[in-house]
């Protein structure tokens, strides 16, 4: 704990006698665990243990990265996985460290809280016999006569005014004032550590009750807030479906602003998105109450039991496919996933309502351009010159087995390419409004129109607010414990004057000044008074707890 207070257990006391028995051993282990040195080592271990999670992709933050890592390192990856390097922050070893750390923290903080509660009720300690040993010391001589009788009373009043607790001991001739301030330092320290326990509990419980669901919506589409309404859903351990309040959300319109510099002075910034806006209509299931709202990045929409966040967007070209007889076999706006900053986008179309299934892997270029290699690319993210390119594959789409399939991927393992690539037939290219023929008499495809889609994320974590409250308490606590000085001050009358001393617990930059100022107030620099300063007994103003 950040305070100069030594562990409750002085290292010199940790002498192990040869026959201490089981109880003794347990006590010894507990003392070791709750010692500050152990806490320090556990903290450093925790820092070191967190590092691999930034080096290797993590399933929680970057599941695609993990899949890619397995593909790239088929031998190494399973070995790393065996020691949980892809789940570092839920791994056994990471958990072990922080559980031990918190056990150590609790073991240290609970007795200290009790001790502090007692100390708050006790008067300051009595004045030590030898004040000269204190790190700040000053003796004031009242040449010729004794210091005034009222001195101690005045000292007590002054110290009280500065927030000290004081204790007047002995008679006015040879007595002394003992004062202590800064109890708040230890209070802050304890609040900080107890708040960390609060943060941990709030993170755990909140995580268990949380959920987050993702849904891609094309303009004009809507979704209903139930499990079936989501493309993917990650519930916490204690999640129950009735946490999902019935409502529906319709994406009316999606707008994007891209930076355009007419003077072309700043080419680097051209095409940078400056704003995303999703305009939605919501309908509450219970009351039928309707509302319109705008969702932006950083501005989620608050709904009952969760916020709706805007997490992604892209184009959804409207495509119609007809068979050779002119019958529509596929029609709709398919979301294409953006692949680069200029929205070169990848989409997959699966045509299933035909005798011979086929699939299309397609690219969309909002503003098409040609690279030197002849390949197409997008030059600008707005649809200035939109174009679709398509490669066609015939064969088993793999959707008859009943397994869920990724709508954004086409498994071409059991398929034969019939257009594009090395198939001998050129890939298809369509401008907006164009219709072209598909190979092998499959019919025609039409690029009817262009819509945008947005990815929405509905998230709820009831623990969040508690994490925040405890985190702010911890911040207040640590600030108090580091900045409020805790010190004891003593004033004692002597034969020929009086002496003052001060002792700080923890770092105290003004210890000597405190003593000097108090001396000046008690004996204003008048003729006949002389001050004798003594250099500090120890240059360090850090003194272990007695």
């Amino acid at each position, binding site marked *: 704990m950040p305070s100069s207070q030594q562990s409750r257990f002085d*290292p010199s006391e940790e002498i192990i006698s040869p026959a201490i028995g089981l109880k003794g051993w347990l006590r010894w282990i507990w003392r070791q665990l709750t010692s500050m040195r152990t806490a*320090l080592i556990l903290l450093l271990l925790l820092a070191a243990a967190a590092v691999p*999670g930034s080096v290797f992709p993590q399933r929680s933050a970057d599941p695609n990265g993990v899949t890619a890592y397995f593909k790239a390192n088929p031998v190494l990856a399973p070995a790393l996985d065996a020691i949980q390097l892809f789940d570092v922050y839920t791994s056994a070893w990471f958990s072990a460290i922080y559980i031990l750390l918190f056990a150590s923290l609790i073991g240290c903080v609970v007795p200290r809280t009790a001790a502090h509660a007692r100390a708050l009720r006790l008067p300051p300690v009595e004045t030590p016999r030898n004040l000269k040993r204190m790190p700040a010391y000053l003796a004031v001589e009242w040449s010729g006569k004794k210091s005034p009788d009222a001195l101690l009373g005045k000292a007590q009043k002054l110290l009280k005014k500065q927030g000290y607790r004081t204790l007047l001991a002995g008679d006015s001739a040879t007595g002394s004032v003992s004062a202590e301030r800064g109890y708040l330092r230890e209070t802050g320290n304890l609040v900080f550590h107890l708040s960390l326990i609060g943060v941990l509990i709030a993170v755990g419980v909140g995580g268990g009750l949380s959920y987050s669901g993702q849904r891609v919506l094309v303009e004009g589409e809507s979704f209903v807030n139930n499990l079936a309404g989501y493309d993917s859903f990650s519930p916490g351990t204690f999640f129950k479906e009735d946490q999902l309040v019935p409502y529906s959300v319709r994406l009316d319109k999606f707008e994007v602003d891209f930076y355009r510099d007419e003077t072309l002075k700043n080419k680097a910034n051209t095409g*940078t998105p400056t704003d995303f806006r999703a305009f939605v209509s919501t309908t509450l299931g219970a009351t039928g109450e309707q509302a319109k709202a705008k969702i932006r990045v950083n501005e989620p929409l608050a709904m009952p039991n969760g916020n709706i*966040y805007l*997490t992604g967007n892209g184009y959804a070209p409207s495509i119609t496919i007809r068979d050779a007889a002119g019958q529509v076999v596929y029609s709709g706006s398919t979301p294409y996933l953006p692949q680069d900053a200029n929205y070169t986008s990848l989409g997959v179309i699966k045509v299933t309502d035909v005798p011979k299934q086929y699939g299309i892997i397609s690219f969309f270029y909002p503003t098409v351009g040609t690279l030197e290699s002849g390949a197409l690319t997008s030059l600008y993210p707005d649809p200035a010159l939109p174009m679709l390119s398509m490669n066609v594959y015939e064969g088993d789409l793999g959707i008859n087995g009943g397994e869920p399939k990724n709508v954004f991927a086409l498994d071409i393992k059991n398929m034969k390419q019939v257009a594009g690539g090395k198939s001998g037939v050129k890939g298809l290219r369509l401008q907006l409004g164009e219709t072209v023929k598909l190979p092998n008499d499959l019919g025609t495809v039409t690029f009817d129109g262009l819509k945008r889609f947005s990815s929405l994320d509905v998230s709820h*974590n009831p623990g*969040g607010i508690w*994490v925040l409250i405890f*985190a702010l308490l911890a911040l207040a606590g640590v600030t108090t414990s580091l900045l409020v000085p805790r010190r004891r001050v003593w004033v004692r009358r002597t034969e020929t004057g009086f002496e003052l001393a001060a002792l700080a617990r923890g770092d105290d930059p003004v210890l000597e000044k405190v003593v000097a100022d108090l001396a000046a107030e008690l004996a204003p620099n008048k003729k006949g008074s002389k001050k004798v300063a003594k250099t500090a007994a120890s240059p360090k103003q850090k003194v272990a707890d007695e």
Partner: protein
Amino acid sequence: MNSITLNADLAAVSRLVVEGAMLVYTFAFLAFALHLSQLASTKKSVRAGASRLERVGIAMLILAATIHGVGMVLRGISASRVPWANMYEFSITGSFIVVFIFLLALTIKDIRLIATFVAGFNLLILGVADTVFYVEVKSLMPALQSYWLVIHVLVAVLATSFFNIAAALSIAYLFKTANWVKSSKAKLVGTLRRVLALFPKEEKLERMAYRFNIIGFILWTFTLIAGAIWAERAWHRYWGWDTKEVWTFIIWTIYAGYLHANATRGWGGKRSAWLGVIGFVAILFNFTIVNLFFKGLHVYSGLK
């Protein structure tokens, strides 16, 4: 459509001004380095002339900081926002705050002798910023358009600056207490020893480092909390072990260790000084390697 106006011409002026500041930092650095070498001289007449050189150095440093500040403000005006949205801007603002805090601390604390370090460090940071991190003035991506950019990043810069000065003090402390410095008979080490003898006493260095570090720690704790609040708005979760979040946590934990070390018998002095230096190395790592090479959500270097 664009509500933001970027002024590329003004950004170019800002860059020139910052480069001008680098030139003045060079003079300040040379003056301070020369000052130290004169102070360490064995000849009394050389030592006597040193204080004038120090005054020249301080004047140069104030001039450099002023020019630096102008360049920083111009960068902000040219982008119509706060000048800390990418690595280049973070570097020029961060290093300005370092020198600003240092100049303020000069009036209250005798930490003049690390002036060489501060001038040299700023020169290095600005050099890297100008040659490696430089990007044309850019509009903010939607995720960064939030008042939390002002709060979260500014406090992070402040915390970094405090840690930076503390690290400089800890390095001086470590040199001063190193056995090889104390005992080596090499001539060069002898000179170093004489330079180090000019620095405040070991205990004072240690205590000053501690004070800068506790302020840094409080500010870093705030950075972490503010970042979590912002992440909850922008990324729909307050904490997700993104690489930058991981490193913010690591740095926080190292400095928490540093504070415990200062309260643990046998861990003060060199060990805690080392922890302070390791903490600052982690900050530099977080800012450079993690930003440029690690995958994560905090991608704002603006570099390709």
